[in-house]
């Protein structure tokens, strides 16, 4: 079966799901579940084959490269999990058919992007993905007016930059095939090289929320339903990374334009630092995660921008991993929102008592996010650092290190503010653990994170294969500490086992010693100068908890990119306000215009013609 059919099947299924929801909610849910199960089942069993469609004289080609199938794996896994998760999560909401239809459309769009072997079909699916995600962003309909518009405008800017690049490439290369574009790229004039690649980068940069183009992301991630945001931030933003990897690596690395690679890398580094800083000071979970996503995408951009074998490897590894752990984290937020209806740190505390499973998966995901050694996130960071040091990007190392150290701040805020701290009986009274259907996706992805931490070879192999599409043959990690036998002689396995051994040893000791006299007490029983805490006192310290740090870095935080854009848009509107006066509404004026136009043409006729 050809690839295109899969995408069309997804689109068709989306419409069927919409109709099914019109008939009956249960039937619709069945439809959703079927897709969620069929998608990975089909994806992991079929063999790809190429397919060509001819439209308007252009031949659109579809097929998987090994690079695309790496991302497709992420998309398939994450979206099928998110779909499963949606079934209980979205249960109470209305217009489900509309939601799921757009959800599936965007999944189809993503698959389409990955299957496209030419730029036009890539653009088409890109736009399908954009508007379907836009429709989901505005689906909940509460205070989304500006957010939706912002998302759409920035997507449009990116998409049109890409479109311009595509038509130019069509002219310069003779067709829109991606491989041929890369093949003919070295023959471009230098201006053409610069223009086409910059435009493509702008296009992909918007989706991957690089710093000057990130403005839409916090709002859009926040406003869409969390089950979709898992895909949105986890997989959909990776489409930008996918494109950027293609462009950055194929163009800059192989065409001897390192300066552009530096631009990407620095944009990524600055994004990583500033977005992380912003994430630290958020008091809404969703905002925190949104900024964190932006920051994490910055790391990936750094990896791709530096463009050495190891850094690209690190970038791709982090991209896949970010999809997984951010997927879990958004699902965790969704779970909390589902059970408590709240997303502000002010209102939530002590959920570990009622939602221990959710806490556990959040803990795993956060450790992966923070890049701490027992879990998989560290491997990516490690590769990134090594690649930066070996390629002499030593100032950038500091940026990335600053960012990833600062990331601990919001990681702690996330875990502590939501799950730990004072347990308010009033608040926790009605809270329950999430339903099983929501547990399964979160649990499975967390398991995979743990597994990748101990056996990174599981994920190294597909990435190494994918790298061959980008022109890195026989990728191995030839760094100091490791050999190239994937995942077998790395530190992590001994480290993890060592850690586990010591941990278990002390766990036994500390649990057994004086076991009977070890009592568990409530969080109201704390040592605060002997003052007994009344039930109505809330001592949970989770709002604005990084004030001192804010005071330190406030000189940087004062400037916002948003202000800049606001000024531009205001300027444009005022400019056209001036033009508007031309249409005075007076017939005589219009007649005058005609006369003036005629006269002008007659006078200028000798010069014009």
């Amino acid at each position, binding site marked *: 079966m050809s690839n295109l059919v899969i995408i069309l099947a997804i689109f068709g299924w989306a419409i069927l799901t919409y109709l099914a929801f019109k008939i009956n909610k249960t039937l619709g849910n069945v439809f959703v579940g079927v897709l969620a199960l069929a998608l990975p089942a089909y994806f992991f069993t079929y063999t790809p084959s190429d397919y060509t469609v*001819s*439209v*308007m*004289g252009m031949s659109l080609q579809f097929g998987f490269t090994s690079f695309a199938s790496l991302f497709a794996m992420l998309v398939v896994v994450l979206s099928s999990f998110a779909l499963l998760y949606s079934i209980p999560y979205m249960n109470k909401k209305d217009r489900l058919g509309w939601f799921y239809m757009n959800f599936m459309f965007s999944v189809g769009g993503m698959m389409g992007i990955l299957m496209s072997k030419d730029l*036009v079909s890539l*653009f*088409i*699916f890109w*736009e*399908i993905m*954009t*508007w379907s995600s836009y429709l989901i962003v*505005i689906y909940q*309909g509460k205070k*989304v*007016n500006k957010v*939706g*518009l912002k998302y*759409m*405008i920035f997507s*449009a*800017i990116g998409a*049109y*930059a890409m*479109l*311009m690049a595509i*038509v*130019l490439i*069509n*002219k310069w290369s003779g067709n829109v095939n991606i491989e041929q574009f890369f093949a003919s790229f070295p023959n471009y004039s230098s201006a053409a090289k610069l*223009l086409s690649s910059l435009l493509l980068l702008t296009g992909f940069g918007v989706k991957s929320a690089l710093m000057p183009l990130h403005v839409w992301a916090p709002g859009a991630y926040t406003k869409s339903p969390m089950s979709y945001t898992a895909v949105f931030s986890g997989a959909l933003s990776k489409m930008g990374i996918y494109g950027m990897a293609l462009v950055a690596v194929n163009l800059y690395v192989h065409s001897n334009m390192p300066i552009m690679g530096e631009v990407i890398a620095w944009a990524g580094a600055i994004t990583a630092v500033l977005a992380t800083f912003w994430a630290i000071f958020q008091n809404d979970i969703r905002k925190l995660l949104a900024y964190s996503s932006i920051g994490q995408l910055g790391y990936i951009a750094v990896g791709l921008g530096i463009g050495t074998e190891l850094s690209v490897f690190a970038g791709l590894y982090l991209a896949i991993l970010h999809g997984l752990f951010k997927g879990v984290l958004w699902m965790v937020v969704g779970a909390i929102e589902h059970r408590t209806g709240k997303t502000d740190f002010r209102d939530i505390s002590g959920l570990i008592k009622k939602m221990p499973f959710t806490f556990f998966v959040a803990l795993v995901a956060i450790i992966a996010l923070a890049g701490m050694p027992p879990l998989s996130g560290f491997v990516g960071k490690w590769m990134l650092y090594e690649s930066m040091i070996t390629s002499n990007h030593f100032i950038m190392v500091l940026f990335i290190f600053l960012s990833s150290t600062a990331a601990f701040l919001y990681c702690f805020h996330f875990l502590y503010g939501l799950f730990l701290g004072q347990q308010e009986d009033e608040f926790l009274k009605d809270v329950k653990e999430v339903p099983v259907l929501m547990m399964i996706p979160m649990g499975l992805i967390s398991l995979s994170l743990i597994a990748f931490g101990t056996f990174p070879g599981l994920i190294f192999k597909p990435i190494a294969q994918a790298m061959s599409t980008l022109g890195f043959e026989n990728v191995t990690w030839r760094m100091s500490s490791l050999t190239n036998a994937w995942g077998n002689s790395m530190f992590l396995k001994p480290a993890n086992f060592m850690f586990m051994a010591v941990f278990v040893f002390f766990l036994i000791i500390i649990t057994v010693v004086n076991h009977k006299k070890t009592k568990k007490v409530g969080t109201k029983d704390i040592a605060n100068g002997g003052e007994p805490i009344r039930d109505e006192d809330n001592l949970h310290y989770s709002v604005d908890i990084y004030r001192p740090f804010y005071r330190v870095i406030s000189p940087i935080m004062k400037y916002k990119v948003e202000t800049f854009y606001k000024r531009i848009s205001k300027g*444009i*509107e005022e*400019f*056209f*306000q001036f*033009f*508007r006066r*031309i*249409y005075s*509404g007076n*017939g*005589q*004026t*219009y*007649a005058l*215009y*005609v*006369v*003036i*136009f*005629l006269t002008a*043409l*007659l006078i200028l*006729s000798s010069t*014009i*013609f």
Partner: protein
Amino acid sequence: MVVANPILYVALPLLVAFLLPLFGKIHKELIRVVPGLLFMFLIFNTVVLFSEVTSTGKPIITQIAGWAPPIGINLVFSAFSGFIAGIISIMGLLVWVYSYKFKKVEFDNSLKYFVLIMLVTAGSIGVVLTGDIFNLFVFLEIVALSSYPLVAFYRGRDGAEASFKYLIVGAFASIAILLGIVLIYSQLGTLNMAEISLRIGEMPEKIKITAFILLFLGFGIEAEMFPLNGWAPDAYSQAPGPVGAVFASMTAKAGIYTIIRLVFTLFDIDAGYQLLLGMGIITLVVSEGIALRQEKLKRMLAFSSLGQMGLLMIAFGINTKAAVVAGMFILFNHAVIKSLLFFSGSYLVYNSENKNIKDLFGFGKKLPLTAFLFGLGAFAIVGLPPLSGFWAKLSLLMASADSNLIALIALILIVSVVEIVYYFRVVNGLYFKKYTGEFEPHKPSWNASLVMLILAAVIVTVGLYPDLIYNYFVNAADALMDKANYIQNVLPSNFVGLN
């Protein structure tokens, strides 16, 4: 086939228009039914003729009263003009279905309304088909004269004012066109376009250019070119809802057709293309920019429409085959999508006095279908795939890239972002602003819904499979670009060979 003949395009609507009062005497309902039958017949006519044109590969040329060109008046149904005529007649049918039951288009007024609509249709198709420049003027006057009352159809003060403005500017157009024709006739002694085209080199340079400028001005007014389009926003916004669609899909098409003929066929002035391109760019930028600042829905749509006309001029001004194909695509799209927007938009602001955008806030839940279709139209016109607008934009951009107009690409795309801003402002308002409660939503009647659904289906289908219709554009472009072929077909005897 005997029945199908290009002349019927002109003759039948005129005939029916004059007979319509008589039908009304027989049965009142006939006033509303007969135009529909007419439009259906016109479509049938188009289909038959078009299949013939495609099969023979030659245009059908009808001579009125048996005189051969260049002396006689002739109608040329080529792949290009026939295509536009087809669009106009199909749109005519849809407008009829839509206005079958529309506000104030009730029994008393329906006679006047349908007569005018038919006259506009006849005139527009006549403009497109005619091979004679004076006839072209006449048909253009028919269109204009029947448009004036349509603008003022609601008998309000604003409508009358808008109509009056249109009248003033339209008068300038008539004068300019007439003067241009007179100049040409005085020099060449012929009114047949093929003949003129053949012999244009004989004209003295100065007079040729003056004639060109006069005709360009006159046709420019009809084609809504900046800064001659002052009448258009008022006319669009004051006319009844379907009439906006009529303007977008018929009148404007006729206008742009005349300009294209002027530049492509009649004169051999190369700078004409550049002038068209330049005017197109100015029109596009100014109109879209002003649309950004509009507070009334219909005015916004009108300015957007002007912007599309600018885009069309750009497409034809580039003057490569690819660009003309793109232009045909945009022309088709503009007719379909803008009609959909006008159709759905006029139901959204049905009860509103001022047609303000903020009056339709929150209508997404009240009028789900209409709002959805409006959104679809907005998606399509800003060029989101897989809707038809995308392909048009893509082909235009590719064409301009082929002509090395990189700055133009950037400009078009920036303007598209502006377009997105103001269209999505409305769409967002539809769904996510609070319903003010000031205006009761008015449910579209079944016929209106049907029309909108058909248009939406066309948009989606073409978007999914543009090749369905793409070949017609290519044929049309061929027909337009191949001037020699046109002359040869119209004047087989006088053909001496032009390169």
